[in-house]
């Protein structure tokens, strides 16, 4: 019996006795059942099994402490109203925010944080971790840690851009459908049904094989991007201009200018194949956003205050902007978080299949694929980027859960 084992059991037993003495029922049940399980584990797995339990518990405790401190930190620096909201956040949400914050910092300051370049070969293939390389090297001898940091930038930026565009298109179409009804609503709804009826991964594969390869050049992606913005903009212009001819002309002129500027801007940030990937994601995911927005807005549109505004002679754009949107932001924000996770996983999945982000650009999904062979040698290297994907997805979902809970108006 080592000192560790004695300390382990005495700590557990002491804590459970204290919990029982102070009538903390749930804490007592948890601690004591852990003690009982530990007896069995100790017999079967020996000291090492107990050590793993202790490490896991320690990790859990540490992340709880980090989350708590991070939440208090946010409350301390936030404005009064925001602080009141943040106080309702459970620890899981705080943990999620902390992870998102870390990933965001890693992505934005990637060149400063990463010790090596993302395509820089520094050692032999599959070199183990040493003092130079925190997590070892990949199949070409590139530093895994540096690639993880750069991957945060590429994958997340792409997913974020795709989700934002899907949201703008879907939400706008949903709001228009809910406010106008009739054939326009039917047309949009059936179109979205058609897109949704095709399995998303297969649809993405199809689109990427059409527009990948030779077509993935600056001109094609610029026109595709302009087309997408054109459709979105048309919805916006028709919402604002309605029946006035002059507004249409002015709106279309502004739209054309905005589309060109935005297209050029996107080309500077992303390369052509990435833009096509973003567009594919936006087209696949906008129908889901459309359906949710239409349903949420549909419930608002039948309210008496909308009728009052219509009777006042308000334009549709005022209805959407001032009456409907404030009442549907909560579910839309929650949906944004969820969709972001799905888009993120889709891009990681496409990269894993070799259709997403092209090498040598670092990306979490393709990192898993490139190092996949290593798993048969019992090395955990390919699991590290996979764990990064899982961690960010879980983190976003924690935050979304909290928002969903708040927007559903459930009491504690």
């Amino acid at each position, binding site marked *: 019996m080592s000192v560790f084992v004695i300390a382990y059991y005495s700590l557990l037993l002491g804590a459970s006795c204290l919990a029982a003495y102070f009538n903390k029922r749930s804490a007592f049940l948890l601690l004591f059942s852990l003690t009982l399980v530990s007896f069995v584990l100790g017999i079967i797995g020996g000291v090492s099994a107990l050590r793993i339990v202790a490490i896991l518990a320690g990790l859990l405790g540490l992340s709880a402490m980090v989350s708590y401190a991070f939440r208090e930190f946010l409350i301390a620096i936030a404005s009064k109203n925001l602080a009141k909201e943040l106080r309702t956040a459970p620890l899981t949400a705080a943990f999620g925010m902390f992870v998102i914050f870390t990933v965001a910092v890693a992505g934005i300051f990637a060149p400063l944080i990463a010790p090596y370049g993302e395509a820089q070969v520094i050692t032999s293939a599959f070199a183990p971790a040493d003092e130079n390389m925190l997590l070892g090297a990949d199949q070409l001898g590139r530093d895994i840690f540096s690639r993880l940091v750069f991957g945060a930038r590429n994958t997340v930026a792409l997913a974020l851009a795709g989700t934002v565009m899907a949201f703008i298109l879907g939400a706008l179409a949903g709001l228009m459908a809910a406010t106008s009804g009739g054939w326009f609503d039917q047309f949009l709804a059936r179109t979205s049904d058609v897109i949704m009826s095709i399995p998303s991964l297969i649809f993405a594969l199809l689109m990427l094989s059409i527009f990948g390869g030779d077509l993935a050049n600056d001109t094609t992606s610029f026109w595709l991007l302009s087309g997408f913005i054109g459709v979105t903009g048309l919805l916006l212009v028709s919402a604002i201009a309605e029946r006035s001819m002059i507004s249409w002309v002015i709106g279309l002129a502004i739209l054309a200018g905005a589309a060109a500027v935005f297209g050029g801007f996107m080309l500077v940030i992303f390369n052509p194949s990435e833009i096509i990937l973003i567009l594919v994601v936006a087209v696949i995911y906008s129908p889901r956003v459309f359906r949710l927005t239409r349903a949420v807005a549909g419930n608002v549109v039948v309210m008496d205050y909308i009728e009052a505004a219509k009777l006042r002679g308000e334009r549709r754009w005022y209805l959407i902007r001032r009456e409907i949107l*404030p009442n549907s932001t909560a579910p839309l924000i929650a949906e944004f978080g969820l969709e972001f996770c799905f888009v993120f996983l889709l891009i990681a999945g496409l990269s894993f299949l070799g259709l997403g982000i092209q090498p040598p650009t670092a990306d979490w999904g393709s990192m898993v694929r490139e190092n996949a062979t290593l798993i048969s040698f019992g090395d955990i290297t390919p699991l590290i980027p996979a764990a990064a994907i899982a961690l960010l997805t879980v983190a976003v979902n924690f935050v979304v859960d909290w928002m969903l809970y708040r927007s559903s108006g459930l009491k504690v």
Partner: protein
Amino acid sequence: MIKSKDVLLKIRDLKIQGYSDETWIDIIKGVDLTLHRGEVMGLIGESGAGKSTIGAACMGYARDGTRISNGSIEFDGMELTTASEGERRMLRGSRIAYVAQSAAASFNPAHKIIDQHTEAPLQYRLKKRVEAQEDAMQLYEKLRLPNPTEIGFRYPHQVSGGQLQRAMTAMAMSCRPDLIIFDEPTTALDVTTQIEVLAAIRDIVDEYNTAAIYITHDLAVVAQMADTIKVLLKGREVEEAPTKEMLDNPQEEYTKSLWAVRSFQSPQRHRPKDGVPLISVRNVDASYTGGAKVLDDVSFDIYEGMTVAVVGESGSGKSTTARVITGLLPPSKGEVLFKGKPFPPSYKDRTKDQLRQCQMIYQMADTALNPKVKISEIIGRPAAFYSGLKGVALKNRVDELLDLIELEPSQYYNRYPPELSGGQKQRIGIARALAAEPTFIVCDEVTSALDQLVAEGILRLLDRLQNELGLAYMFITHDLATVRSIADEVVVMQHGKVVEQGPKDEMFTPPHHPYTDLLLSSVPEMDPNWLTTLLEERGIDNVGDAAAARIDPNDPKVSNANA
């Protein structure tokens, strides 16, 4: 009938707290209540007085977000506050039953009525299914439901509101409980239907010597039902006394003010001798897409500065008429004239000025005000929209409007609708209509969701505004007391037709159209013997729907109205 005097329910110093803004606040601040077997106690008070909370507490139940923090609830010798959840659950349904305000929302739409009825007796193993069904039919018969052997096998949506409310009372009776809690069982019903339900409830409670707690805000109703009345205000008891004593001789100021509520009466105005009506509805037919005719040849005039009350039970086409006038539902035949000129049938074709002339105040202030928009914008928007006011001028106008509706501008300017009480919200709705500077306002059941004292305040406000601003009102209501106090002219509607119209004084003096007569005589009065007398006069089977169906089409008054 002799009522045994054992105490059934004893509540002492009950305190209930509700959770809001991260703290627990007292909702019920120490209420005592003693109920004997077979006794019916009426709980009255405004909304927020804690009536329903006490009603739920009688079952040892605290709603979500509330907790019983102090006091004892003793039901037939059993202490409910310390009893386990299982023990309390054994009482509910079998010994204490509950009848909710909206039967339509409380029945499960997916199951037949009788299956829901027999659920409790089967659950408690009191009866076998067939026995329980037979018993249900007997109860339906006692409650005078049509086709008692068959009605239970329908789904809730196939039965009318008043019948559903009686079926719910029958369901509460299914285990022959010692205590039934009625939470506003007739508030959502029309006066004509209300009578049927009241009579049925009273008889059945008498017959089985069940104790009951009857929660309502309608004094006249409680006067018919209760042996004793307890008045509540903001979670405290004001006074308690036997019904007769309470009605004749209230002790407390607050109770007296409740009794005095129906005193407000606006002097009646008369039509100008010659002049063009402000709004004139001419031979209007209307129907919703693909449906049957909802309005059939409706015509009436509204003159400037006058109030026309449109009366009728639900489904009689009152609100549809309003929708036709405002242009939300273009009529299929006929037209609406504004100052002698035709109004475009759809609001989409009306000019800004035409839209401005005709404003609307809604029944449910909760859904009529956007909860996410500040009061200043709700009221300011029409002023900015129609008159183009901006900046300081707009703020002054909003302040002026808030003053007009008797709310302190600085306090309300930056608040949101959910922070206000029902009456305050309704005032904001009025201010929004006034902000457009209209000449004509449609008031759609503006007071029916409010307590009497608050409703009275709103009526006074509307009357004052009418005198100051020369507004014309179309006042849609099913409450004849409201008509008495504010209307100048009355239009009675039934099944989408105008059955009678004329100045108020004529309308309230006989001879009436039989339907008007039915409506008038169905309004509960303060006299505790009113229901008994009425049932004796009319006969037990000649109230409500049955009576409406019996109106003789050949009656001279009827044929006059149709001619």
